[in-house]
């Protein structure tokens, strides 16, 4: 007997490669979207800080915009700098 696979359609879940599961600001899973979006993934990306903390981009931007003087990471209170990985 010879079995030839002509085509194989698999199902996969996509995941962010991050050191945490949830966004520290909105408490939603990274694979979900921030409260303002309706689609996750490309439409609601993650950003990494130098301090190694990860957030939804929309969430951290909102947070940084609300800070008057200093731009701090809401988790570790270090100055927030985007890490362009």
């Amino acid at each position, binding site marked *: 007997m010879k079995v030839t696979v002509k085509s*194989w359609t*698999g199902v996969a879940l996509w*995941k*962010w490669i991050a050191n945490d599961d949830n966004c520290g600001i909105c408490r939603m899973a990274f694979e979900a979207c921030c409260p303002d979006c309706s689609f996750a993934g490309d439409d609601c990306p993650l950003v990494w800080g130098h301090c190694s903390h990860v957030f939804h981009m929309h969430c951290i931007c909102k947070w940084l915009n609300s800070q008057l003087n200093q731009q701090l990471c809401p988790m570790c209170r270090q100055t927030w700098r985007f890490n362009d990985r």
Partner: protein
Amino acid sequence: MDGTWERLKVLFPVISSSLAESEVTKENIDSIYLELVSLGVLEEVSQLICIEIDKTLQTQVVPEFWKIFDTNLDAQSDNQARERCEFQLFRTTVLQLYKKFQIINRMLERLKYLYEKSGTKFIYNFDEIFKSVLLSQLPNNFTKLVYSFYHISFNVFINTKAEEDDDDDDMDQLRERDDCDGCEMPTARCQCQELVTAFGEINLCLTRMGLLDRISGYTLTNLIQDEIYGHIQKTCRGIFDTQHLKNLEKWLDTIVLEWLTRIFNNGSAKLDPSNLKIRESISYFQKKLKYLLYEKYAKTIIDQFFNIIIEFPDSQPAIDDLKLCMEKLDLRAHLVEVLKNSLETRLLHQGVETSDIITGYVATIKTMRHLEKSGILLQTVTEPVKEYLRKCRQDTVRCVVTSLIEETPSDLSEELARSEAIKAEENERNQDEMNNWQDWTPDPVDALDSDKNSAQNRRSDIISMIVDIYGSKELFVNEYRNLLADRLLTQLDFNPEKEIRNLELLKLRFGENLLHSCEVMLKDISDSKRINSHILECSTFTSEETPNDPAVSALIVSSQFWPMFKKESMELPEEINKLFERYKKSYEEYKGNRTLCWTPLNGKVNIEIEINDKKLDMTVNPAQATIIMHFQNQKEWQLDQLSTVINMPPSTLRRRIGFWQLQGLIREAKENTFILCDENHDQAGEIETETNVVLDEEETMVSANDQREEELQVFWSYILGMLTNLDSMSLERIHQMLKMFASQGPGFEFSQEELKSFLQRKVREHKLVYSYGVYQLNKN
């Protein structure tokens, strides 16, 4: 003296207890008068005569009359013959009574003459005495004869009427029959004419004696009631697509009332306008009969209501009729009772499929809507249906959702397509309501607790009514999501336009929020196609390509928005695994910071099997493909051996091998030993039948029920903590504690029952011990 007595006897035979007729002249009376006056006994004699009349009435006339009514003719086998006999008996006895009545009346006239001659006033109200004596001896069963009498005459009358109305053609047809329709005698000896004459005669006698109403009234009402019922059954039963009420009323007004008029009006149908008394009693009868007609007709409709529901909307005219009847009569309670009963006996039992029950439910909603706008009856009537679906049919939600999105048009999918129109209608109606506030009518008294079921609620459309069975939209949306996921993952012929249209329609119903994840799911599908084509062209993927590689593609889904996938795992064939790894790498490169987790059991595989010079082209699921691929290199496998290699529990594996057994490619040679059937040509094509091959539809998604338990898993850590600290706790206690401390979390809304089944599962998994009504941690 003796001479006077003899002469007196001739004048008043009653004093010798006889009612013989005699020739009497005025001279005879005058001479008797003189004789009695000269003897001075006029008063005594006249009183004696009155007493004798009373006596004769009581002991002779009346008992003789009633005796006839006791004649028992039941022995007569033929019903018609019996009725004819009874007709004649009644006729004779009434005629006799009338004769005696006349004789007595004549005697009384003579007596009156004597009195008036002497100048005293004659006070003897014979009519009243006659009536009271007669009625005081009324036997119980006297109505039987009367009924037969009027029944025959009614038949004759109806028949003559029908003949008058019929065309010539019909006349010919009638002639061909052997028996006359009216008197049911052979046509040659038709007695209709005689019967009509006799009938008129008897009625006249009864009227003259003032007995017509007393003797016939009750029976007449009964008879006509029966006739109305018979007529309705004959003309209307089972015919729902025309309105009958007008014709029935016409029938009553013309035929029945004309017959009645003839009875009361000495045989003539023309009513003298000056005869107020008869007119009054006729119109009284008419009112009573009309009421009866409505009642009988409405009840006939109600008795067949289930059929009407099934035939709706063709049965609309019948509903319209019932509506008219219900305006006049209070039949709500009756309707509710009958309909509830027939729904229960014909719809709500084991033998009916859930989808049929739902169809029936929808038809009931439509029918009752038509009958009554306010929807109160509907609500009362459908309560048992809802309860039955809720309690006894687990697959209700699935059936409803399936029929909502079905390809072939069904009631529900049509209803869904009308969503937009309904929304607009509702708005319009709301505005109308404010403009026409004068037309507001209060709810009928039998409305259920009115504050809970506001009018708005009751008027909601069919889909809302269906959803209302469970009282929650979420459940329906969840089920829809599961079904959608199932279809997206397993069906090849996925039609995105149609799914999107369905989704949009459902959104109108259930709101954007609840259906958001479904939208994401559909978007995942279209995104996957794009990513696929990108990756397949990408250099990372193509560089390692070998010519024998199967075409690979992936459905990349957003885990948060899809229903939970089964946790089950499986080891894929190596070449496929490698392909997937390459695919994953390309994806990581393409998307950056994102990776893929394959769910090996989901998807579909197109394989070609070459065996014994035959080629089979099949589309199977990954598990089936993996199994058959393992048999390619090794022709014989032990169940546990294969189970370890594929990393699949033996029971599941056996079930999946079943698929190939049915295909005739693998057989179970010994217990738990499976062999590929390709050496022996005879066996190859044979389908294995002796083994108990179990094959069931595989479901990719976790069912809503299991998902619930998964949600409860969140609380497992709380429960563990509680039991560690407090050692043992009862179910109620755990439920309460969770409510108190853990209720901030999302989705904390579960009943004690749900918690119980969750804890019982933990007991089965040996994580808890249940004894004496309390749960404890299993410390062993």
